[in-house]
């Protein structure tokens, strides 16, 4: 079966190349000195990075995206932590319905979710505002954040808390000194994930932005439709590096293996 193994390996590497190709191409294209994309680039230049970093429009979109992702991540993690504390430790009526609703943003097709969230934000009169966008992003991130926190709390050994209480710690001290440190890895990964989800989100966001208020991915989307400037490649590369930085932090703090359980 040597031949079969070789075939499988070459197939896998071809697939990996297919997966990475468009991403690597964007990075390569961002260093072109010309006004259009060329391959192979004659020489390298940071011209387009300069143009982006001195453009008020790109910088503003970048700032909006960062702020939005940060606020979304803080609030989503906090809200889901509170909810998970209750659902894992107390009898909650209609818990099944509650958890079904939390996973609804995952089950609805993207375009339908976009219209639903648009309707909600419009009803609040918050279309084109930071607050409206934040609410939509939190709802989108809910299922991705609630699950890991619930799993983290389930794995927590309750007898440690009981021991602390028996030794005279009041509930607040127990929570601060025992529960919180034990659940911290789950909270940190939940925070980083909701950050990435919000920072990258575009298909719902595009319905909610205002006239002079946009996020980085939405600005990239509209620029791709309107121009072929290599500046888009430079911005995309920068966006990518923010995300990859986050992935690096996740790997350092909790390990990427949490995605697949290799242990049998």
């Amino acid at each position, binding site marked *: *079966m040597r031949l*079969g193994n070789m075939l*499988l*390996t070459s*197939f*896998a590497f071809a697939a990996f190349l297919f*997966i*990475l190709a*468009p*991403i690597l*191409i*964007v990075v390569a294209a961002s260093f072109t000195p010309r006004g259009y*994309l*060329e*391959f192979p680039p004659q020489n390298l230049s940071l011209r387009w990075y300069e143009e982006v970093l001195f453009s008020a429009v790109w910088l503003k979109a970048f700032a909006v995206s960062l702020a939005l992702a940060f606020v979304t991540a803080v609030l989503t993690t906090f*809200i*889901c932590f*509170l*909810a998970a504390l*209750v659902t894992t430790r*107390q009898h*909650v009526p209609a818990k099944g319905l509650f958890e079904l*609703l*939390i996973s*609804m943003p995952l089950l609805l*097709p*993207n*375009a*339908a979710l*976009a*219209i*639903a*969230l*648009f*309707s*909600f934000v419009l009803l609040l009169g918050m279309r084109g505002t930071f607050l409206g966008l934040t*609410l939509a992003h*939190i*709802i989108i991130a*809910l299922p991705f954040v609630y699950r890991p926190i619930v799993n983290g709390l389930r794995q927590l050994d309750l007898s440690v808390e009981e021991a602390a209480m028996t030794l005279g710690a009041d509930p607040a001290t127990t929570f601060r000194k025992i529960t919180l440190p034990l659940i911290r890895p789950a909270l940190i990964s939940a925070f980083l994930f909701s950050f990435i989800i919000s920072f*990258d989100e575009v*298909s719902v966001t*595009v*319905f909610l932005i205002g006239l002079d208020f946009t996020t980085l991915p939405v600005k*990239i*989307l509209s620029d*791709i*439709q309107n121009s072929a400037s290599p500046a*888009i*490649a430079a911005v*995309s590369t920068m*966006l990518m590096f923010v*995300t*990859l930085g986050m*992935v690096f932090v996740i790997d350092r703090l909790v390990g*990427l293996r949490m*995605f*697949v*359980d290799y242990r*049998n």
Partner: protein
Amino acid sequence: MRFSSAFLLLLPCIGLLIGLVTGVSTLVQQAFTGPEGASFVNLSQFVSRPEVVSVFFFTHKIALIVTLISVLIAYPLAVFMARRPNLFYLVIILIPLLISIVVRTYGWVVLLGPRGLLNATLLNLGVIDSPLRLMFNTGGLVVGLVHVFIPFAVLSILAVYVKIDKSLSEAAMALGANHWKVFGKITLPLALPGVMTAATIVYLLSLGAIVTPLLMGGIQQTMLGTMIYNQMLVYYNYPEASASALLLTISAAIAVVPFQLVDRWATRKMPGHRV
């Protein structure tokens, strides 16, 4: 007392969920709103207007093609990754998942576009005289969608595949079964729930896609997602967009039923499954 204070902790989450439910019910209400009050006018065009009907069927056709291709690529890839547990391979699969869909689709535009790298290179080498149409057609659209959704498929299959007991295949081989027989009788049936999860996810994601068909499809390749985008942001027709979104959701719910049935059937046939 304890119950009421616990309920307070749930309130922010419940508030947001009420918001989501309100949004969905507004969508349904809008879908049944005509120029003069309640009506079926928005939904009936999915029967009466041929171009809208064809968008509906085209979307499901593309979703089916993308699901088939994704699973066919993802299955061997998951087998490879299960046999060689290597963090590096896992990172290759995870990275695209975490990079914005706009950036990934832009990569294909740079690569396959009319003035993209592939066309430019071929023109420079004198292989072709005029740019090839590699994008803005069904092929380009399928390539873009498969690329976006393949990590989901690989992860779903891999999660199930790594849990299959290796001694089952070894026993079959020792008893004289060849690789194809082991695949057909042991590994594939056991991995089937993972394959069906992958198919469900990819089908649902393809149906609702907006960005990829917007950037890589042509006028002929309008999908429900792009149609909703246009109805909402180009024609400002909120009721029509809501009707499309409603039909998209209902047809998605119906379309994934076969995958779920196969999943249930495969699980029931598993050794050790108690009814």
